[in-house]
């Protein structure tokens, strides 16, 4: 009798261990089918200038219909091209930086003109350019137009006709920014964050003292807000640095996940929520970190970890479909392009001199020194 009871206990314990192990493995080690990046074509840059140049070096592909305008930022040029490979505007990056900088998306182009003390705002949908008599650092994201004061202590959002939508001065120095359609998230060197509505009103503020994590130094080193504004994520503090994730409950954002990192980054790193908010990708000193919203767990994406540990690492993350991300990373003369899906790196290729990555209409584009390389992804990543 005693032996049977002992066996039952043993079986129950074994079952618990197996279930626990399965849960841990499934929740922290998501699986993904490998994807394949298939080269489509390369578009060589035309000379700089406001001109229309057909630079196709391969036959037209017509993946999707022509006419849609795409922005790009090359190592030495920036501008626009369409699906058929025709460049509609190309400008010299070095000249623009010397004039105070530029920012662009598929609809708006902001170019600073420090010699005239103004900004030129071009709206491609409306087909007009407006001279805005303000100086600042241009920033365009989610079809929203911002100017950041040069000392990073104030911001103004502009309407598409160049008029002021709202402006706001900050008490600290801005170190990170993330925008959604109706809300924006601003992170500061003193460890505070502010969530600002589309009218410029402060809707939520988290002071450094209210953050549950207790690093040696409090500062915001990266931030992201989901497209619907329901989640925010921060790369927070030094010694140690933390990844913090918050979810919106009523008017408040409450912490739902905290991860202590082994390596600090003292410059701002990119973070990005997936299109549907199901996942978050973070560039950190530990490597790329993938956060799964449903499981509220995070894991380091093993691939490319060495690159992220370098002090001079630079990175850009873009959203793709179905919770996937494309990442281009450069450090120490080495650059790679990665596709991250379901917490795993499903594709990784060398990308020498890459300066931009984009995802539109099922095509992944990579701006390099020689032109814009376009890829399609074969194989669906699944979690």
């Amino acid at each position, binding site marked *: 009798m005693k032996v049977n009871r002992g066996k039952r206990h043993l079986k129950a314990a074994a079952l618990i261990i197996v279930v626990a192990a399965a849960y841990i493995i499934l929740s922290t080690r998501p699986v993904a089918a490998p994807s394949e990046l298939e080269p489509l074509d390369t578009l060589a840059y035309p000379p700089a*200038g*406001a001109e229309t140049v057909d630079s196709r070096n391969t036959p037209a592909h017509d993946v999707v219909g022509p006419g849609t305008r795409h922005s790009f*930022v090359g190592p030495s040029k920036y501008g626009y091209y369409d699906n058929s490979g025709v460049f509609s*505007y190309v*400008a010299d990056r070095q000249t*623009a*930086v010397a*004039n105070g900088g530029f*920012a662009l998306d598929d609809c708006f182009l902001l*170019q600073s*003109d420090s010699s*005239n*003390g103004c900004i*030129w705002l*071009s709206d*491609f949908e409306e087909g*007009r*350019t*407006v*001279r*805005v*008599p303000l*100086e*600042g*650092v*241009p920033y365009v*994201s989610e079809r929203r137009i911002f*100017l950041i*004061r040069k*000392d*990073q*202590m*104030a*911001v*103004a959002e502009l309407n598409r006709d*160049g008029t*002021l939508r709202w*402006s*706001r*001065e900050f*008490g*600290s*120095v*801005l170190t990170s920014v*993330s925008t959604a359609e109706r809300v924006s998230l601003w992170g500061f*060197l*003193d460890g505070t964050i502010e969530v600002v509505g589309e009218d410029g009103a402060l809707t939520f*503020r988290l002071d450094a003292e209210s953050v549950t994590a207790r690093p040696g130094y409090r500062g915001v080193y990266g931030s*992201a807000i989901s497209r619907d504004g329901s989640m925010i994520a921060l790369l927070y503090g*030094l010694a140690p640095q933390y990844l913090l994730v918050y979810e919106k409950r009523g008017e408040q954002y409450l912490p739902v996940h905290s991860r202590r990192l082994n390596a600090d980054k*003292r*410059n701002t790193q*990119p*973070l*990005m929520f997936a299109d549907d908010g199901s996942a978050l990708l973070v560039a950190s000193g530990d490597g790329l970190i993938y956060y799964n919203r449903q499981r509220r767990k995070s894991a380091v994406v093993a691939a490319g970890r060495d690159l992220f540990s370098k002090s001079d690492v630079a990175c*850009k993350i*873009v959203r793709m479909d179905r919770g996937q991300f494309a990442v*281009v990373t450069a450090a120490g003369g080495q650059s790679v392009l990665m596709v991250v899906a379901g917490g795993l790196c499903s594709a990784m290729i060398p990308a020498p001199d890459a*300066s*931009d990555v984009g995802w539109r209409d099922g095509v992944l584009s990579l701006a390099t020194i020689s032109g814009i390389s376009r890829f399609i992804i074969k194989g669906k990543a699944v979690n």
Partner: protein
Amino acid sequence: MRQIWICALFLLACTMAGTQDSPWASMVVSVETEFGQPLGSSLSDANHTSEVGEVGASTALTKGANTPSFALPFGNPAQVTGVAREALAASPLGRYRSPAAQYGIKSEKLSPLLPGQSVYFQQSTTKFQGSGILPSGANAAAVLHDNGYVSIYSAAVPLLFDLNKVKIAGEDSLGLFVGSTSASSVHYCAVRVYDCDKKVWVNPSMFLPFKTDTKAPKILSLALLDADGGRSAIPSGEGAATRTSKEGKAPAAKIPESYPQGSYSLAIRALDTLSGRELKSGLYRFRLVVDGQVLFDRRLDKAAAGYDGLSFMEGKTPSSATVNAQGAFLVGSYFFAAGIHNLELTAYDYVGNYTRLNQKIQFR
């Protein structure tokens, strides 16, 4: 009582900090802009508000005017005018007061004011840009000091940071100015100092033991602005008598025409001056005495960091609310009863040189 203690501790901390050896003392060769000085790209545009279109968003740009040095995607650019232009000019990007002081330093090395540890850096020549990537117009670094201050250094010119160095000793450099022709080149660097405990920006001049500023600041005007329309009730300093710390008695001031009694906002236009090879230490204090009573006595020693921005000399936030289109310091609103009043405004620079302006004003 508690406030007195806080002020005393603050001054003690600043004094102690200022007495430590700082490489900046020997490096600084000029002061371009001062702590709290009214700034803004649109200050000179203030009188252009009556252009075409009172409410219109934009108007056609005349051919050849303000053409940029780079090409634009569309041939016929317009410009923002009228009310829209004024709104841009009045925003914290149009005019503001900065907690930074911009120094010209004669060294290819950028050293911190005090030893500490590096807590932040950014480079303007970032490889990538776009959504989620902070666009930075300057190279910058921040250092956390033992006294709880964070000092921030930013420069528009290229700076090469030592990214692996965390502890910064007194002689260490944060970075090197790139592209300088010689070690004696002058580089410009904006310095800000933040007190993490008190949440205030501290005047960085406190860390620089100026010794060669012997020239008094200059008061360009003292104006009383109507509460409603913001018009100047008293023309810029007309009829006023000024004397400086180096001069004798002020001559008698004329009494201009009278003004209705009521509340007026005070606008002070002043600047610190320099002579020869001296440095200017910067405006530091304004003191207004009306009929022998001190109306206000405020210092540019710190700026409080509030939810809506920066507050200088206990003024409103954001800082753009305390700067007018002429670049004057707006120092608050005061009531003046009927009668002749004697206004005595004294402006001090950081080392104690001062200028005094006397003005008799009649209110009816």
